[in-house]
């Protein structure tokens, strides 16, 4: 499989290894393995073991190979490991390769049928489960057997690595939302495999789980759900979207949390429209934002491409709306189910002509929630579209997190004039114009359709306009307007989430990154520190860039910009905005379709510095 593009270190220990190893579960897509894998992740979570699950899945409904990696780590490191010590090889099509990828001393849990063809190594442990035989013994009706077959590896893994059987039952009940019947059916298979393994398998590996206290008070969630929940607490009220992987589950999340915002009669305060395409989805949110809604769409690269024209219109006509880009690998259809940070430049510059788009860059589950609500305040305060750039890794995978903080700022609608305040404005300034900048911050006052004042109406357009929104082709009107828009973007720099900076040490090396690379870099920095290499760290959380980025660059002798795209897009942006004295700024750009590993960060940085 393609996972080995990044480094594969050697395993060199036979001491007991407790709560610090990773699984790769290889199955066929559509075989029901998602439930099995989720049960394993949630069981570890309930044992108090910090855990992270990542689904590396194909663009396919049924049949193609899929891998799910589960990393348990007592110290709370959540990045994907380059090395997985254990493989559950349940896909005959990839089993040979899966076993070949194991380090010496690794473990292969497989079926007796597949085992016949993959017993090629003598330096790993093979555990062979007679799946067909066990399935014949279950009470599961034959119609459901195929769906629950993967529960055999849950039972075997539970027995071999010490996950309590009763805990798995509780997790199954929770997984089926309290329904006992499907939980019992699945658990029957888990139990059979668990008991068979206890009677027939001799454990020859050092890996074991043990209850600990590392997850109390924490939650597990996907980033798409976290962002959706944030949007619901941010007052989203018009959602328009078109299905696309990996953003579809974002809107599913809003649908799931919609009940939190219903009134006593169960009427909705959130309208959700599945549009005919992303052009229409963008049009609906722009129209809604114009009329005073808090509107949101969620999409990915191809959808963002289609939304470009509306993005430019909303930027120029100054209309608030929130666009989530759950980035997948491009260009083109690319790798539709693989993660990437490759839309940074395109999204920031979305739309033809001059201009920049506001982008928020969540890197953690908590930030997905926080930016979920904050994006609406920013959009309305700045009267401009806001793009939240997440990625497939954050959006679709399960992340462990502290619980989310309730919004610490009240909802802010920005500069909106109602009939009374419009009259007040006219009394003070003599007249009102939609694009008059009386505060000197580049942000004008808007009225909403429906405002009962004879001067409230204005004509919104994407064509050249003067400060009264009247059509104008005059050069001075054009230049004045563009100058004000630039001023507004500069006002934005200080209003947006500022970079997270760790520059406590006197390190000469600075690392700049954004988004979900946080975890891989955190772990790699600890390894580097063990080697005596000190690093400082800055994670950009919004565009346009904050001024602290320049200060950080100037303060370090060597700066690495680490990002998960092929072209080094953040590096390019830094070069554009901070052109002086940046020969010491170098990109470490990955872009192989997979979540970054600490091994890659560590090795790449050592190689560059060495």
């Amino acid at each position, binding site marked *: 499989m393609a996972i080995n593009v990044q480094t594969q270190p050697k395993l060199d220990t036979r001491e007991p290894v407790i709560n610090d190893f990773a699984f790769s579960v290889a199955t066929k897509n559509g075989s029901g393995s998602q439930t099995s894998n989720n049960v394993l992740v949630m069981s570890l979570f309930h044992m108090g073991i910090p855990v992270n699950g990542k689904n590396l899945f194909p663009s396919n409904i049924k049949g193609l190979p899929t891998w799910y990696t589960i990393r348990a780590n007592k110290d709370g490191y959540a990045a994907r490991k380059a090395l997985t010590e254990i493989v559950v090889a349940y896909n005959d099509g990839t089993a040979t390769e899966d076993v070949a990828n194991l380090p010496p001393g690794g473990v292969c849990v497989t079926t007796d049928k597949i085992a016949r063809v993959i017993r090629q190594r003598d330096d790993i442990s093979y555990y062979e489960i007679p799946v067909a035989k066990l399935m014949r013994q279950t009470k599961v009706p034959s119609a459901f057997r195929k769906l629950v077959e993967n529960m055999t590896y849950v039972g075997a893994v539970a027995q071999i690595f010490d996950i309590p059987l009763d805990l798995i039952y509780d997790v199954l009940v929770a997984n089926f939302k309290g329904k006992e019947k499907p939980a019992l059916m699945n658990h029957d298979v888990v139990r059979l495999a668990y008991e068979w393994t206890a009677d027939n398998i001799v454990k020859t590996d050092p890996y074991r789980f043990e209850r600990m206290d590392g997850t109390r008070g924490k939650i597990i969630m996907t980033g798409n759900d976290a962002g959706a929940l944030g949007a619901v607490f941010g007052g989203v009220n018009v959602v328009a979207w078109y299905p696309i992987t990996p953003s579809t589950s974002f809107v599913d999340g809003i649908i799931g949390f919609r009940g939190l915002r219903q009134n006593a009669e169960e009427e909705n305060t959130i309208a959700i429209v599945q549009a005919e395409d992303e052009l229409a*989805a963008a049009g609906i949110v722009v129209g809604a934002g114009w009329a005073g809604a808090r509107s949101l769409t969620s999409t990915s690269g191809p959808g963002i491409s289609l939304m470009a024209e509306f993005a430019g219109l909303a930027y120029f006509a100054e209309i608030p709306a929130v666009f989530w880009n759950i980035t997948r690998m491009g260009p083109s259809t690319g790798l539709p189910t693989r993660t990437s940070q490759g839309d940074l430049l395109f999204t920031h510059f979305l739309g033809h002509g001059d201009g920049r788009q506001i982008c928020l860059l969540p890197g953690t589950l908590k930030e997905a929630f926080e930016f979920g609500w904050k994006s609406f305040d920013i959009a309305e305060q700045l009267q401009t579209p806001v793009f939240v750039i997440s990625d497939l890794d954050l959006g679709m995978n399960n992340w462990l997190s502290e619980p989310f903080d*309730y919004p610490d700022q009240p909802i802010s609608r920005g500069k909106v004039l109602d009939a009374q305040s419009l009259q007040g404005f006219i009394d003070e300034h003599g007249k009102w114009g939609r694009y008059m900048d009386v505060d000197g911050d580049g942000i004008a006052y808007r009225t909403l359709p429906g405002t009962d004042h004879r001067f409230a109406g204005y004509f919104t357009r994407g064509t050249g306009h003067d400060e009264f929104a009247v059509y104008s082709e005059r050069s001075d009107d054009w230049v004045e307007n563009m100058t004000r828009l630039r001023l507004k973007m500069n006002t934005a720099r200080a209003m947006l989430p500022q970079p997270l900076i760790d520059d406590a040490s006197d390190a000469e090396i600075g690392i700049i990154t954004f988004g979900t690379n946080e975890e891989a870099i955190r772990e790699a920095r600890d390894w580097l520190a063990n080697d005596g290499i000190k690093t400082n760290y800055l994670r950009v959380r919004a565009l346009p860039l904050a001024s602290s980025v320049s200060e950080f660059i100037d303060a370090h002798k060597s700066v690495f910009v680490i990002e998960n795209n092929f072209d080094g897009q953040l590096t390019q942006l830094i070069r554009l905005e901070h052109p002086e004295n940046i020969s010491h700024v170098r990109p470490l750009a990955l872009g192989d379709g997979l979540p970054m590993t600490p091994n890659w960060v560590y090795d790449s940085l050592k190689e560059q510095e060495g």
Partner: protein
Amino acid sequence: MPPRTNHLGLARNEYKGRPSTLCPGCGHDSISNQIISTSWELGLEQHKIIKMSGIGCSSKTPAYFLGGSHGFNALHGRMPSVATGALLANSELSCIAVSGDGDTGSIGMGQFKHVIRRNVPMVYIIENNGVYGLTKGQFSATADEGQFLKYYGTNHMPPIDLALEAVIAGCTFVARSFSGDAKQVQALMQAAARHPGTSVLDIISPCVTFNNAESSTKSYPYGRDHEIPLHEIQILAPDYVEAREEIVIDDYTEGDIIDVEMHDGSFIRLKKLENDHDPRNRRQAMDVLERSMREQIFSTGLIYYEEPRPTLADTEDLVEKPLAQLDAADLRPPKEALDKVMRSLMVG
């Protein structure tokens, strides 16, 4: 003498917009005038109206009427989605949507069909002249097969009939008219304004610069000579309904009158002319349009009407208050709600 005023005490002038920048004599300007007259006569409150348009000559016109209303000159072919969003945000707004045959029939065909499918309430006016004006006279998708234009030669494609497309898409109010027939345009606008759903008015509106030769079916001379109204139209507002029975019908026998009852209790009274068209019959409506296209008959009037389906806002099951006017308490659940979600995700 002071000008005549409507029931809001406003003169017709108050419903005007900025001066038109279209070519003198453009059919679109007369449609703008009909919008002004209709709005004034109905005594519509301008702040409760939004004017939506796409891109093209037609889409410029919302600047030229109802200066007191909010308007949005959006993107080419994508007015329907922008209007959909605005009307979801505020369901109390009424929408006058203006588009052209290029804006609707080519780049915007998808959005046209889908806005009808969702039944977003708006008066959707297509100012149909068969050519692209701003880009200097290319054929549009509604141009007649075999038509010759100086710069682009002969059009070899069959036309798309936008009224027929509307009926097929599930539109519950479809009319065709001629911008030179002010009386009919106004009557249809009045009826459309009362219809709680997407109402499509396909108005042939000559382009005096690029497509006004006598041979063109989208020209003034052709329209004047060939328009065949399906019926005479009269709108009986709810206030007149009681008196309906008493309205004297001079030259018509009872069988020659069709009273189409509308959702708000008003009636569209159709007086039969030469044709025998009942707009409540979908099959008939499609036949009339098919035949008109095939035989180049310029039939105008109310082509199709049915009881409106639920609107998009209805199917969304929204709270009564417009979403744009919800206050902070409606927009953000309390802290306890978040804590409860968080607890449900925690260990034990």
